[in-house]
């Protein structure tokens, strides 16, 4: 058994005296592809930010590659959800991508030709090399998501964190995105992804972490009925109208709508 890549030990996080996360303990092995699912307000994004070192836990600790997350920033790629960016910001697509190979400290303000080459390669990998000189504010949501993934990849990360990467992307784009992530994962990149899209993840990911204040880690991407109940707290008989049967092959049954 390989040593864990990401480790969370007894992680607590509270906001305004309310516990958002309680006693989270889990390990993610190298080359895993984890989907963190859960209801809105269940703490998935908070947990992701704790793993990234953007938030400091109230109790407990996170270690990535045996170190605090902030110490290994150059090994981490991050794709935020709808980055709260100014749409009029004057910056080209390539320059946004190149912020992904930024290192702390004073450096010559111009990027090197090697960095620019790598930036273009990352864009080409995502099929948007032709956008390199465009203003990033002029892109569509799907194009911008690809640019943000290129930005996360240009630093050659070992671990890729994504927050709701399919939000605002059409079904075809979502499928392409999942296939791309699978490809990255088979190239050896560990992926941790926050998602609410349970149908799609059951066919693409390796393991599932259910986050709803507590965390339940499932080493296989099987969505069980118990899991659904834990996630959504529906009393019996009023279960989610979309029911899932996941015995290896994704097989979906839609329950009749109640009048």
């Amino acid at each position, binding site marked *: 058994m390989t040593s864990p890549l990401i480790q969370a030990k007894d992680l607590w996080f509270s906001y305004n005296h309310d516990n958002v996360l309680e006693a989270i303990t889990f390990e993610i092995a190298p080359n895993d592809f984890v989907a963190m699912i859960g209801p809105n307000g269940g703490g998935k994004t908070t947990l992701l930010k704790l793993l*990234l*070192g*953007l938030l400091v836990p109230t109790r407990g600790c996170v270690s990535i590659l045996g170190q605090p997350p*902030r110490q290994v*920033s*150059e090994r*981490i790629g*991050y794709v*935020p959800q709808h*980055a*709260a*960016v*100014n749409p*009029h*910001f*004057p*910056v*080209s697509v390539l*320059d*946004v991508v*190149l*912020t*992904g190979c*930024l*290192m*702390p400290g*004073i*450096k010559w*303000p111009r*990027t090197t030709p090697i960095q620019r080459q790598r930036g273009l390669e990352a864009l080409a990998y995502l099929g948007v090399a032709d956008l390199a*000189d465009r*203003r990033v504010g002029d892109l569509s949501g799907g194009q911008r998501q690809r640019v943000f993934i290129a*930005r996360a990849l240009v*630093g050659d990360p070992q671990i890729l964190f994504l927050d709701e990467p399919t939000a605002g992307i059409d079904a075809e784009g979502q499928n392409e995105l999942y296939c791309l992530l699978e490809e990255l994962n088979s190239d050896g990149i560990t992926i941790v992804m926050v998602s609410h899209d349970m149908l799609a993840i059951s066919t693409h990911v390796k393991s599932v972490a259910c986050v709803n204040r507590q965390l339940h880690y499932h080493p296989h991407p099987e969505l069980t009925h118990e899991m659904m109940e834990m996630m959504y707290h529906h009393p019996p008989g009023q279960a989610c109208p979309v029911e899932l049967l996941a015995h290896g092959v994704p097989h979906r049954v839609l329950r009749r709508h109640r009048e």
Partner: protein
Amino acid sequence: MLEIFDFSFMRHALAAGVLVSVICGVMGTLAVANRLVFLSGGIAHAAYGGIGLAFYMRWPYLPGTLGFSLLAAFTMAAVSLKARYRADTVIGAIWALGMALGILFIDLSPGYPVDLMSYLFGSILTVPGTDLWVMLATALVIALVVGAYYNDFLAFSYDEEFAQVRGIPVRRLYFLLVCLLAVAVVLTIRVVGLILVIALLTIPAFIAEKFTRSLLQMMAVACGLNILFTLIGLTLAYLYNLTAGACIILSAGAGFFIALLLEHIHKRKPSGTDVPMALSQGK
């Protein structure tokens, strides 16, 4: 036309105008990109307290005002970081408090009252030579610091969270930015006055943002526009015997509306924006 520069006070005014244009072009770009315009306004008005304090304590203008403004700026920045959704309220309070303190200090000062109008609306025509050297040094320091941290400022301004994940010290960068802004504002008050300082920081940066595709370009265009507005304003002030600071802002204001108009016309056209054309028409 050029004979107006036969007067040494006009040459000083021109030099001060160009230096302030560059300082405000660079810092205004960062202020607009990081939505720190209101905070800059707060610094500018709180600086009034510093002017009063310096006068009361018989300190020289620059160190007294700069010290007070830095203190006010850091307070506002710290509160903005701690409670972002309350930032505007706290900035507004410090804004008013600073001005009131300034007036009280002037009231309490013995002797002939200082000409506060010159601090409200600027005194570009009476800038002493020593101030020019201070401005030159400040412009160089700002250029050096912004140059050294350009990529960090870019990443931080565009997507603060991502910059933090990359290990950029965003808090330190934020305080550095606010500190540079305070310096820029205190120096600019000398030229266009505290009421009007916001215009030189925001208007050129706002216009430049529309037609540029990098922070560096935006800074360069904003500096150029500032110099243009300052030249037009100084000429108008000289020709019609008007307050120079107000004339500079008036020409910037005209540029602002011309830019809005041009953008409106441009948007109706089917093709994309033509950068150089739009800018040359902006004059």
